[in-house]
């Protein structure tokens, strides 16, 4: 055997990654799960992240509303009806006193028969922090009176003024968030379930099921949403308790909203059910529910979450509009829409513009959800 024909054999053990050795960074990227990559992608979208933080803060505030609000939901200051907002000051006549508000004096104008308020520059009312104030039942269960901030003893603290009955607007907006923000979440959960089940059936089975669902969707989408919502919520029995009405309204919101999601699910399923992995799963004896839930849905779950995020603001707005028109929630349940009922009278609004303040959180929430949803939609397809 001549030397020329001998093969070179390395004595080193075989290393398959010899040529394409990955750096730690590359490895992290290649091995990342889909959700991790979406998160990286989302983080680059500054506006979406900022909106997400704003929303997180707002939703967190809902948990501890009683503690944050200086007044209790139904607390009335009978002597201060339609009182203007009190600004927070730090310096009194050049001296630092810490956060405080000036007292309000009121006189009755006999010509216009209006109460007129003026700021009393001599009366300094320092704010108290982590204090005992209005008693409340935390989540309707535990009795407590601990607040983040309270007015001075015998003083007042109306950061956004008071309404016709002397309720503190700021406290009521905080309490209203509890209802307004959760309506969207519960509504979207219901509509999500309806959309996935109905769209899934239509897309997976096709044929007459698909045809029927398609027609129903077409009809629902050709109806203007708001009048439909109005008519349905007017049909809620008047003797229902406010809590039942609340769930009734979320159900109604979901009933009109699902076609959009169902349509998205259906079109994706139509494409995916022709894929080889679906056939493989079916041949191995998987039931339709398993094929849809285990093999098909995860493929476009991220898209669905993005579009669901984009429809939450629609629901929040719908609830606000319905309550504003007097067809939605009824007092004592307080949502931003219920608060805005007071702003319907344009004369009152001109005299007491702070009655319009519940609009501000509505617009912030709608904008934030839109930005977040946009960011999610861009991030939903991280392999692009």
């Amino acid at each position: 055997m001549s030397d020329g024909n001998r093969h070179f054999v390395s004595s080193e053990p075989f290393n398959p990654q010899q040529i394409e050795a990955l750096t730690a960074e590359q490895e992290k990227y290649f091995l990342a799960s889909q959700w991790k990559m979406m998160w990286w992608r989302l983080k680059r979208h500054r506006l979406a992240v900022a909106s997400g933080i704003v929303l997180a803060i707002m939703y967190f505030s809902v948990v501890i509303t009683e503690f944050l609000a200086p007044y209790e939901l139904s607390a009335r200051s009978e002597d201060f009806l339609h009182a203007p907002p009190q600004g927070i000051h730090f310096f009194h006549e050049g001296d630092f006193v810490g956060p405080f508000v000036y007292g309000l004096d009121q006189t009755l104008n006999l010509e216009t028969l209006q109460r007129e308020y003026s700021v009393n520059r001599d009366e300094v009312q320092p704010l108290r922090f982590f204090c005992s104030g209005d008693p409340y039942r935390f989540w309707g269960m535990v009795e407590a009176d601990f607040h983040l901030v309270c007015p001075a003893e015998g003083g007042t603290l109306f950061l956004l003024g008071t309404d016709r009955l002397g309720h503190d607007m700021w406290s009521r907006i905080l309490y209203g968030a509890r209802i307004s923000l959760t309506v969207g979440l519960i509504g979207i959960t219901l509509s999500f379930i309806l959309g996935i089940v109905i769209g899934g059936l239509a897309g997976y089975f096709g044929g007459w099921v698909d045809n029927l669902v398609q027609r129903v969707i077409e009809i629902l989408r050709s109806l203007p949403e708001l009048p439909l919502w109005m008519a349905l919520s007017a049909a809620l029995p008047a003797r229902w308790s406010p809590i039942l009405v609340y769930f009734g309204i979320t159900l109604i919101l979901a009933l009109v909203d699902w076609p959009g999601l169902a349509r998205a699910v259906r079109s994706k399923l139509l494409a995916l059910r022709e894929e080889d992995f679906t056939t493989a799963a079916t041949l191995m004896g998987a039931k339709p529910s398993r094929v849809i839930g285990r093999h098909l849905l995860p493929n476009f779950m991220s898209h669905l979450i993005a579009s669901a995020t984009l429809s939450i603001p629609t629901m929040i707005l719908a609830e606000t509009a319905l309550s504003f028109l007097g067809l939605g929630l009824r007092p004592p349940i307080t949502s931003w829409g219920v608060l805005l009922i007071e702003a319907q009278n344009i004369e009152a609004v001109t005299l007491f513009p702070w009655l319009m303040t519940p609009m501000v959180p509505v617009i912030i929430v709608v904008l934030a959800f839109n930005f977040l949803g946009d960011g999610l939609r861009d991030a939903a397809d991280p392999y692009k």
Partner: protein
Amino acid sequence: MLNYLARRTLVMVVTLAIISALVFIIVNLPEGDYLSSVIAELESQGENVDRQKIQFLREQYGLDQPLWRQYLVWVGGLLQGDLGFSFELDLPVQDVLGDRIFLTIVVNFFSVLFIYIVAFPIGVYSATHQYSWGDYGLTFLGFLGLATPNFLLALILMYAANRFFGTSIGTLMAPEFLDQPMSFAKALSILEHLAAPVIIIGTAGTAGMIRRLRANLLDELYKQYVVTARAKGLAEGKLLVKYPLRMALNPFIADIGNLLPQVVSGSVIVSIVMGLETVGPPLVRALQSQDFFLSGAVLMFVAVLTVIGMFLSDLALAVLDPRIRLTGGAAK
């Protein structure tokens, strides 16, 4: 084409039939019979009830019969132009709505027109000047327009007009023309008062339309046929109008299917907030007092408005776009 027209008409008629059933069921959902509760209330107040008249109404609209009979009577009436009877106002529904039906159509028509007229140039501008300051500014405005709900916008503008200009922007005509027959002066007054509501109703739609037209046009602008045309020396303006714009225009028209329900929805609530003389305000009142002939008629009218609008846009699209397949059978 004729075949397509016939098929599309059939679909529309079936859709309207189903919608009418849906509307009838919804307005009849509240428990109890309106007439009986009215009689009870009047009697408890010691007032005289005109039993003969109520009996007449009952028979006229078949209120003592099962629901499906009532539905048939109602639809039959609708088809013959009898919209029913408003028990609360003690008037036929036609008389309650009267001019409002026409004014609703006017408001919605002008809102859609406004959306197209404003969205078109702005959309084209932001697409051709992508990432310029103008584009950024307009995109931001669009976002704001999309996020501000129109009934809140109406409230804000009414407050601003009242506070800073001392005028009221509510209502659709000067007070002296209310309940007057239509005349040239009245039409002029209506046109003057239309501006504010049309802008308020149209804002959200305009913002959405701009975004879609911009995206569509951007997809087309960098395609090869555009490059080819440019390489052959076609002037920029002519190039834009001749090729990519025409391609981007189809979705623009097809989109009326999404736009119309949104505009009609918006016009209802804005009308209620601003007190416009459209079908919006009677709808809320009727829903609150369970005056079901009135609310049913308004809901039906609003649905007919959108369905017919979509029908017309489908026809326009079929004429404009030769790629639309007029024969049945979807490609799978």
